[in-house]
């Protein structure tokens, strides 16, 4: 009998809101939005955790510049704090080596991480999701009953094609979606906004392509000063975050 699932609810009990940053498409800025959202909320004085569930291609640790830290063992594992954010990722255990996992292993890792991580009281737990509607998304829906989604897309019709599918399934399952962020916008167009409105999900707003962003990757202090961060902050004001 699988026992770890029983304890997950207890581990998440003192977390007020759990927000998965997701997309039907890869490379649209989920990890960047997840990390900067966590930074933004921590800056506002909230207690924040960040969980990287992109198990093949974890990247939150690169964005935040997490190095030379390891969780503490105390009735489970306590995530180290980076920029005031409690940060948990598979990289602590893989030493960043290539990670090939099959679906059942993905599920087992997610269960294990959720069962042994002692987050303590948090206002927000942000989850950096891998692209698509695969095992990770299904497991988050299965194990995190009070979860919400924040969906990221780019202005591309190709991205929006995949993102629409994610939005529709979330809607069908009646999972709360805070809204859709259009990222890496280059020119004015309302295609994404219109498509999102048609599906009946809130459109939050857009973040423009920031050509100076790359220089800030790996440094939380620099990230806070980017144009990207400023635009994210403005967009969040339109939500209850």
């Amino acid at each position, binding site marked *: *009998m*699988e*026992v*770890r*699932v*029983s*304890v997950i609810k*207890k581990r998440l009990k003192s977390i007020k809101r759990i927000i998965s940053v997701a997309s039907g498409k890869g490379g649209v800025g989920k990890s960047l939005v997840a990390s900067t959202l966590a930074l933004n909320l921590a800056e506002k004085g909230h207690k924040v955790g960040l969980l990287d569930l992109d198990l093949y291609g974890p990247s939150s640790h690169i964005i935040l510049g997490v190095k030379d830290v390891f969780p503490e*063992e*105390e*009735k*489970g*594992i306590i995530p180290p704090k980076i920029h005031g954010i409690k940060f948990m990722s*598979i990289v*602590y*255990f*893989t*030493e960043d*080596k*290539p*990670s*090939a*996992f*099959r679906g059942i*292993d993905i599920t*087992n*890792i997610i269960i*294990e*991480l959720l*069962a*042994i991580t*002692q987050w303590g009281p948090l206002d927000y737990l942000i989850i950096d999701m891998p692209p698509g509607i695969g095992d990770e998304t299904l497991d988050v829906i299965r194990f995190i009953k009070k979860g919400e989604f924040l969906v990221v897309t780019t202005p591309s019709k190709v991205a929006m094609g995949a993102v629409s599918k994610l939005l529709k399934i979330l809607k069908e399952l009646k999972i709360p979606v805070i809204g859709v962020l259009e990222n890496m916008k280059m020119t004015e167009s309302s295609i994404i906004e219109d498509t999102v409105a048609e599906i009946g999900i809130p459109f939050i707003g857009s973040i423009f392509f920031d050509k100076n962003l790359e220089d800030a990757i790996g440094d939380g202090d620099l990230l806070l000063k980017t144009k990207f961060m400023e635009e994210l902050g403005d967009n969040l004001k339109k939500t209850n975050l």
Partner: protein
Amino acid sequence: MHEWALAESIITAALEAAEKEHLKTITEIKIGIGELQQIEQDIFEFALNEIIKAHGKKLKNVKISIETEESTLKCKICGHTWSFSDMMKKLNEEESEAIHFIPEVAFVHTRCPKCGSPDFEIITGRGVSIISIKGKR
């Protein structure tokens, strides 16, 4: 002390199962621990006892037995099977500790000893589980 978290999941799951089966008391829990996770049995048992004490009536006279399950791994490419003890010899301390927390990172830190593939399965002996529960209605 991440054994504590695993012990807690055993007890939480046992209490849930007892609830479902309308058991007033749980008299016996048989626990399996997979070799791959290298549980420190002393710490694990200590944690179980502490958690049981905190749960009063329902678990008061429960008998706990623990069985260790040998770990077998099987390659999906060449079909070779091997055991945790074969694999253990090649691991350094950090790798072994990582597998202790998340058994699946065995796929990251080791390979099939025969063909070198990372595409193998954990057939037996992964982590902790309840083998059986007995109780009184």
